[in-house]
């Protein structure tokens, strides 16, 4: 395993909220100015630390949504109603506020874009965030790497980055996006309308002979299911990288 971008000690830094983007009713992106940010790879995450006025602190990890090329660092956060940090980041934070963070973290669930292999991205809910960093990295570098995203959301309104994904997929440069809506579908919906299954994966995934590299990110049951199905379909387990989001505590 090659050493990666994370080399020195990861120090706590301040990011200033430059912009807030409400992506869906429960999901927002925080666009941060982080002076001295040393860069990251698509797929990595940061730790965010909040401090109350009596010194009480709480930390959580959030995937980076922005590509390495952007001058600002974006994280996209889903508000968990019983969470501790996410209701602050989605609801309380305003532009101009400072947020303490350190990173980038993680050297495995990353895509550098220097690989010829086709890419299969499988996302559930806010699991799309690190995969979006990869898609944006691909677009920023005008890469033509054949890439397919299969993205499972509860409803149309819950699709994060919907307009941007539509735009990028219509560029005709080798990116395709397939959606499935598991709970509710708008009238005239032509995408999938069920939980991810083997028939869906067989339609969307690259033939295993093309030896794609696969990134799966989402809630644990969805990731377990998708990864197991891919292995049953004959994909090399070593080429299937997973990242799981517990629905816990965030």
């Amino acid at each position, binding site marked *: 395993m090659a050493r990666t971008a994370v080399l020195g000690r990861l120090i706590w830094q301040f990011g200033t909220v430059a912009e807030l983007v409400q992506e869906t009713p429960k999901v927002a992106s925080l666009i941060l100015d982080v002076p001295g940010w040393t860069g990251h790879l698509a797929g990595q995450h940061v730790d965010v630390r909040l401090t109350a006025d009596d010194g009480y602190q709480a930390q959580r990890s959030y995937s980076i949504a922005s590509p390495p090329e952007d001058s600002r660092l974006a994280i996209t956060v889903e508000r968990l109603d019983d969470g501790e940090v996410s209701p602050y980041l989605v609801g309380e934070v305003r532009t101009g506020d400072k947020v303490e963070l350190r990173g980038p973290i993680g050297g*495995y669930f990353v895509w550098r874009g220097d690989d010829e292999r086709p890419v299969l991205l499988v996302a559930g809910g806010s699991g799309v965030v690190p995969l979006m960093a990869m898609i944006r990295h691909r677009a920023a570098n005008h890469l033509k790497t054949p890439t397919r995203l299969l993205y499972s959301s509860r409803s149309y309104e819950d699709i994060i980055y919907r307009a941007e994904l539509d735009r990028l997929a219509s560029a005709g440069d080798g990116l395709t996006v397939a959606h499935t809506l598991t709970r509710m579908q708008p009238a005239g919906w032509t995408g999938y309308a069920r939980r991810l299954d083997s028939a869906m994966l067989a339609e969307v995934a690259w033939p295993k002979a093309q030896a794609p590299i696969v990134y799966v990110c989402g809630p644990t049951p969805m990731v377990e299911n998708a990864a197991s199905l891919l292995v049953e379909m004959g994909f090399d387990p070593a080429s299937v990288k997973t990242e799981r989001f517990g629905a816990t505590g965030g």
Partner: protein
Amino acid sequence: MSFISRGFRGKRRDTASSSRLPPGQYVVNDFPVLSAGPTPRIPVAEWSFVIEGEIDKPRSWTWDEFRKLPTEQVTKDIHCVTKWSKFDTGWTGVSVDTLMEGVDTAAEFVIEFSYGGYTTNLPLDDVTGGKAWVAFEFDGQPLHPEHGGPARMLVPHLYFWKSAKWIRGLRLVNEDHPGFWETNGYHNYGDPWREQRYWGD
């Protein structure tokens, strides 16, 4: 405290539980799953556990042989580097001391290696002396594959990535060799009480 997150209150804990909680962690009641790839399914008929490397003669156990070894029931707090901690988790397993009984080795380090290719490294002293187990039951039930079944390491005094799932064996080595997460940005030792999460911590 110089910096305050404007408007942040947080969810405070009682003092009793906060003294059991390493810095930067929070308590969960469920059992989150974290793995870097698909969950391997290993039938116990094909399972074996080995101790190899700096040892005169490698030792190995089939599942049946392993299950005839004396077991221990332990209740431990566990701490994942992704910030969750879970208190009072109940395990049944075989102590590494039992597996290492009578082994004469000059090795100072050990590599846990797993079905599926995962590895993690630690000093030998951290798996001996009543500090580590090969666990096959969680809360009295066979360990689910998602959580590392048929058997996983349990090294609860270190961050939980040091407790390899789907354990296949221990390799005794003279020199330290960073494992999977240790080469991917995570701390070489991983003491939660010193918050050794990442390189340089």
